[in-house]
């Protein structure tokens, strides 16, 4: 996780350097072109569900939903809030790590800027376990390349274990689109 994030940052930095002579400010000084990246919020301690960038470009943002230190995770229910002028929700897909075939992946954005999501097993299942396991991907239309937050509505988000019980200890973290 940390290695891949560093990779993204490094790539962005190199890209900025490579393009540094392509533009100038109003005073004639060249200014580096800034690149939009998704920066994950700090990962909560213990078991958590977080977002990280998978793809960004061509008017599209794809995030991975990552389960960190999860054990027998049966399903996740969560809501994301964002600026509807910047992002519009496209789709959610479950990863192959879920046991159910197919798992259930639902999303609904009835209110622009608020998407309600769930990913879950069906029927009897041992659930998903792992230290850093991709639970699914979330695709957004990137309407404008500008900094913006993607927040988890924590009070309406939660995880359920394979015993059918809520896992209140699971933490959540969103992230930000930032220009670097």
């Amino acid at each position: 996780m940390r290695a891949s994030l560093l990779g993204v940052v490094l790539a962005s930095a190199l890209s900025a350097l490579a393009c540094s002579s392509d533009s100038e400010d109003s005073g004639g000084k060249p200014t580096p072109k800034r690149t939009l990246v998704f920066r994950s919020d700090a990962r909560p301690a213990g078991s958590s569900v977080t977002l990280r960038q998978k793809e960004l470009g061509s008017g599209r943002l794809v995030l991975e939903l990552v389960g960190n230190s999860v054990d027998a995770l049966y399903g996740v229910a969560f809501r994301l809030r964002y600026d509807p002028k910047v992002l519009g929700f496209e789709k959610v897909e479950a990863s192959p790590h879920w046991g159910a075939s197919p798992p259930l992946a639902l999303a609904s954005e009835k209110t622009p800027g608020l998407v309600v999501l769930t990913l879950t097993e069906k029927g009897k299942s041992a659930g998903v376990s792992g230290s850093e396991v991709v639970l699914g991907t979330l695709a957004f239309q990137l309407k404008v390349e500008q900094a913006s937050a993607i927040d988890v509505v924590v009070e309406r988000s939660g995880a359920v274990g394979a015993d059918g019980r809520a896992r209140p200890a699971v933490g959540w973290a969103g992230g930000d689109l930032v220009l670097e």
Partner: protein
Amino acid sequence: MRKVTFGFGLALGLMPALTAHATPIPRYEDLVTRRSLRASAKLPKALSTPLYQSTEVKKIDTQLDLVPSSGVATGHVDVELHAVGSVGQVALLLDSGLAATGASAPGKTVDVANQVAQGYAFVNLTLTPAMAPGETVTIAVDYSGTLSCQSQGCYAGAPLSFISENAAIPGVFDQDNVGGYNAWGASRSLTLSVPEGIDAVASGELASSSTAGGKTTRVWKIPAFHSYGGNVVMLGVLADQPVTGVSIPTRVVSTQVGPSHVSEMVGFMQKILPFVDAQAGQKLPYAELKVFKLPLGWLDIFRGTAGYGLTLLSEDYAAGSVAYFEETLAHENAHQWWGVLVSPTDIPVTRWLVEGMATLSQIDYAAQVQHADVPRDEYLARRYREHWMLVKHLGDPSLPLVVDQTNQIPEDSIANTLWAYIRSSAFLEYLRVVAGDDVFAKLLRTWAQTCNQKLCDTGDFENLLEAESGQDFGPVFAQWVYSGTAAEPSLAFSQSGGTLSVTASGIDGLSVPLELFVEGEGGKLEKRKVVFEGSAPVTLAIPTPVRRVRPNPRQDGLIWSRSATPGDRDFDGEVDGFDVIQCAYRLGREAAPSQTGGEGIWSSDLDFDPRCDEDQNGSISDADLSAVSAAFGNVKGGQ
């Protein structure tokens, strides 16, 4: 005086008395194979009065010389009768292998006629002159023969036999065909002689025991009060273990052959008896409590019951799990109060204060003792959800808990069990939630104290409930005790200016008190008691934002509530991932009993959630999950 011919007509009238034992919940698997109950008799409903029509039986003193191995019996009974009206006839009921050989009464001529029907011998006694109203007479009857044990009143076998009333010990009928119940207020004594070396354990207090001439003679006495607790005697070569550390002398008895589970039962009783004492608010008033473990295979002979100072339970109940055997043992011991010492006089038309109460106690015991690690509310809600499932899919919620006539009592054994045990206990649990746990706990203690060996009935229970709670339960009793209906409210709520408005649709015409769980946005839970009068909204002053409003799920056994928002199973008025996950988790689950790994009364899947069963067909299928998924995302704006 009315002239009545005893015989086959009388036999029909007898059956409720014969089957009116305080018994454990029948196993579902057994009921499936034998669904038909014996026909019910027509008996009057009497409030707080004994069931005497023409004749009150005051005393039954029996002397019996019995050889269990051969069934040869010689007996004598003195029956003290008090005539309410003019009484010219009574009948004794005996095993069909026995017959009366003579009878007498002071100042009367007693003609004897024996007639055999349905495995019983009916001994018709005609008194001349007839007893005048208010007159009291003791009739002495000699009888003898060889037990055939073709009825429910006895069993001859090794290593265990039993005898009870209506077989080797006479039962009494009056001329109005009122059998069994009319003798419930009688005192009993039994003097039993059996060959030396045969042990005997019986209901009643052991008054004496002596051995002479190769025979052991024991005398048991049961005081006079209206009760289930007649004579039951177990005979064989027996072993027992004392139960130490409990409030009254107690022992567990079994046959010497196959004494399995006795040590475990001793341990169980060390937990059960303090529980029963606490629930009734007093210790049992016996010199000794005997707990008899009936052997494997006795399910079809005598699965268990409770009598005066005697609790019996078949080891067959351990077949499912030892834990269920333990809670069933708690059920039978609870009957010492709910059935034996407190024995409602309206028993011919209801079982809710006997079987319903014992089932309530059984589940309470499981919650308090066996599952103390689970929060009580959560455990009870989970158990009573089974009652919703069973009544919804197998039962009849429209059947009153107190019927007008005994012929309204279901003859189908499954329907009967759902009425007597399952729906009755669900109603009691509902009352407890609405009245409050502390109020209800005090009510049970008051009920035991007030009605211990007294004449009480449903009306008395309602009066005590209202006195203890300060609430009017008239409409509730009218809806579910004296009539019946399914209550399936759909709840919706809105909040404005510090006022929460809650509406329950689908209960037009009903008055439904409920305890609501009002959960704030921060997760704080507040319990509020309300009364829904049909669909009229109730308002509550709740200044902080509310996330969900739902009935206390312990009420679910009787009040089958749902959210008014289709697909919303957790009552927040939204359909989000939590609703979907909970229903996805339950995909494939069935409401039917006898599920592999099942729990509860009839091994149901207690993870079945009726609120995920959108089409209410008793199975949570892909179609149900699709219905929830289709509603997914229906959330309140901006949250």
